């Protein structure tokens, strides 16, 4: 794909993300009904899409890592790295917004008793350690392969972390997207738009970050040529 096409993609995704997020948040605040038992429930439309986007970014990073190991094409190394970078940013946002919600609803910023919270933190820390591994090894094919293998191991944690919310014995952490009791249609639609917006925002940031890293690499090549 050419650079201009990629940059056009980033512009289009940014505009789409802005439109979807504004629409999604407007629906969440002015159309979706309030949850009677939780005045801070509207954090749900932010916190859950952000957490799911973090999973999606880690999954995308894992997919690119698999492509690298499969094809040995080193461009996937940068793509995997940038996706995981985005995943860590969205993961941090999920932890912070979750903490704000928890402080109001449970009265604490964090609790170690909830395994889904701890598992999400483990996933976040696992991918944070990815950067330590990556930057402690000299750049080259070896670093690319090691990083890819590490990124793929992390992917195994995603279903565990995701399913823990549903399989945990204690239900302090709310499970909103259920069939019984069924979430109201207006809430589900608003949530869907917010999730689409958050995924599009992550896509736009991914393309912008990738363009920046590639520009840096080209500058380094030019510097060597001119020197």
């Amino acid at each position, binding site marked *: 794909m050419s650079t201009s096409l990629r940059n056009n993609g980033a512009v289009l995704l940014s505009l789409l993300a802005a439109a979807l997020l504004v629409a999604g*948040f407007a629906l969440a605040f002015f159309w979706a009904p309030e949850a009677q038992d*939780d*005045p*801070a429930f*509207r*954090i749900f439309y*932010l*916190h859950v899409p*952000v957490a799911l986007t973090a999973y999606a970014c880690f999954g995308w990073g894992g997919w690119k890592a698999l492509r690298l190991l499969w094809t040995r094409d080193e461009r996937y190394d940068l793509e995997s790295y940038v996706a995981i970078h985005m995943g860590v*940013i969205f993961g941090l*946002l999920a932890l*912070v*917004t979750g903490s*704000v*919600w928890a*402080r*109001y609803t449970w009265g604490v910023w964090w609790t170690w008793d909830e395994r889904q919270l701890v598992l999400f933190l483990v996933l976040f820390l696992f991918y944070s350690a990815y950067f330590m591994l990556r930057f402690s090894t000299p750049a080259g094919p070896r670093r690319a392969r090691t990083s890819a293998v590490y990124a793929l191991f992390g992917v195994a944690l995603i279903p565990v972390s995701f399913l823990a919310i549903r399989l945990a014995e204690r239900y302090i952490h709310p499970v909103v997207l259920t069939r019984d009791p069924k979430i109201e249609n207006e809430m589900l639609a608003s949530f869907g738009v917010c999730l689409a917006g958050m995924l599009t*925002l992550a896509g736009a*940031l991914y393309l*912008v970050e990738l363009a*920046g890293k590639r*520009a*840096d690499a080209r*500058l380094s090549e*030019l*510097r060597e040529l*001119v020197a």
Partner: protein
Amino acid sequence: MTTGEKYVTAAYLVLLGAVLLYVALIAMKLSRIERELDELARLARERAGG
């Protein structure tokens, strides 16, 4: 504003702050790339002239 609304506002401000911080970081990166490109263009011109 109720306490619940204050917490909702705080959570949404976290996202807004993160996006604005990211925009600021990208702006700094762009200005650095621009500076380096100017420097490379100057070196290339000097080389072509000399």
